[in-house]
């Protein structure tokens, strides 16, 4: 905590010496970034368990493709923007964002675009000392041949899983949480944009509403770091405001016993339970607007 105050005192002192030149948000972020993060009060195992629960952004990309939504590059963050991300905080969030964008290009078989994202991801990962997870030669070879799409998807998904595991082992799970939050918000951003363009598509609205469950987990994860990481504290405030909007949505579930059959040695479950989402268009619009605002703040 002393280090944080020291960092802030340095900023204030620098500002006082040169009153004409105020520190930019990035400069503040950079100083805060260098402050040593104290261990969270909760065990790494608990954090790891919660992180494991968060679904892959790939699931949303697949839903979009299956619902015949066209590939649209304008939804994605510009891969050329990596030089804008000059602190570990910004880099970890951007890595999550680019990871989701890469998954989106993969799902839509846009291998040329995927290569741009891979280069940006590799560069950010190197800066965060996790570049060893990307064998860029193999990945590029797979990306240049559309027949290898499954392998490319597999490798990139495995890499992101491995990075998360590694960061947790390295007691850098604050970065893992940023990576995950950036990735999740980007998926929510993409589905929000698509939903805005297709206002009659109820499934897309339901997908946004169902993110309520994941939102709770993301905010919970951030809460473990708000006392020790000033960057996460700031971000957590925005996510908590978004959570308040999600809290207006109600999900009602009716449980019924499942039934089973065995097909080719596999137990196939018939889930007889049902759920109903109670929401209105105003909720969804408000969520969308907040997501756009937070995402804008993350990528710029």
């Amino acid at each position: 905590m002393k280090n944080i105050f020291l960092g802030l005192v340095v900023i204030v002192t620098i500002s006082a010496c040169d009153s004409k030149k105020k520190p930019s948000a990035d400069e503040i972020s950079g100083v805060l970034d260098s402050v040593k993060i104290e261990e969270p009060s909760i065990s790494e195992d608990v954090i790891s368990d919660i992180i494991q629960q968060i679904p892959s952004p790939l699931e949303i990309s697949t839903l979009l493709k299956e619902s015949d939504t066209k590939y649209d590059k304008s939804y994605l963050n510009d891969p050329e923007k990596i030089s804008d991300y000059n602190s570990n905080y910004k880099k970890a969030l951007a890595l999550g964002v680019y990871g989701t964008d890469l998954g989106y290009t993969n799902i839509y078989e846009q291998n040329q675009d995927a290569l741009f994202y891979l280069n940006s991801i590799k560069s950010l990962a190197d800066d965060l000392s996790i570049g060893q997870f990307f064998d860029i030669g193999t990945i590029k070879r797979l990306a240049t041949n559309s027949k290898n799409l499954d392998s490319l998807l597999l490798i990139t998904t495995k890499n992101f899983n491995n990075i998360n595991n590694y960061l947790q082992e390295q007691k850098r799970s604050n970065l893992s949480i940023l990576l995950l939050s950036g990735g999740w918000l980007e998926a929510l951003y993409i589905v929000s944009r698509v939903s805005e363009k297709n206002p009659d598509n109820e499934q897309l609205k339901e997908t946004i509403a169902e993110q309520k469950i994941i939102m709770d987990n993301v905010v919970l994860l951030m809460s473990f770091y708000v006392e020790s990481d000033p960057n996460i504290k700031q971000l957590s405030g925005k996510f908590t405001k978004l959570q308040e909007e999600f809290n207006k949505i109600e999900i009602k579930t009716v449980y019924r016993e499942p039934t089973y059959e065995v097909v080719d040695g596999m137990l196939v479950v018939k889930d007889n339970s049902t759920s109903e989402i109670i929401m209105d268009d105003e909720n969804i619009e408000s969520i969308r607007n907040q997501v756009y605002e937070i995402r804008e703040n993350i990528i710029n």
Partner: protein
Amino acid sequence: MKKLIFALGIILVTTSISQSYAQCNTEKHIEACIPKLQSGFTFLKSYNIDGQGGAKDKVEYSYVFTKGATYQIMICNDGEATDGIVLTLYDSSRKKVASTKYEGSTLSSIAFPCQVTGIYYITFTFEGSTNHCGGSVLGFKR
């Protein structure tokens, strides 16, 4: 002398336990498991099943399953059998959804077309297992 023998005993037990930990190469099982996912399923996550030579009787993970998606969870071990590893899936209220121990046989895979979005618990237990070691993968399709 008694203390010396006791200390040596502890060292031997600790060594043998750590040797059995080292023998559980979950990565090998996971690598073998991924291609076994049924056609159409996209790989999402892998799970280590390390019962630490019998020291742990349960290994548990959780994941948010989404309504409208079908998930396949597969257990892999040396050969086709699961070496007594049983996968049980529970919903967010901890109600049992399914188990690979079904009507007297132990299967290696579950397909779950999810109708309610929520947290699900994926639990691995060991029933007469020799190695208490395996790997599991989760795939999904729409």
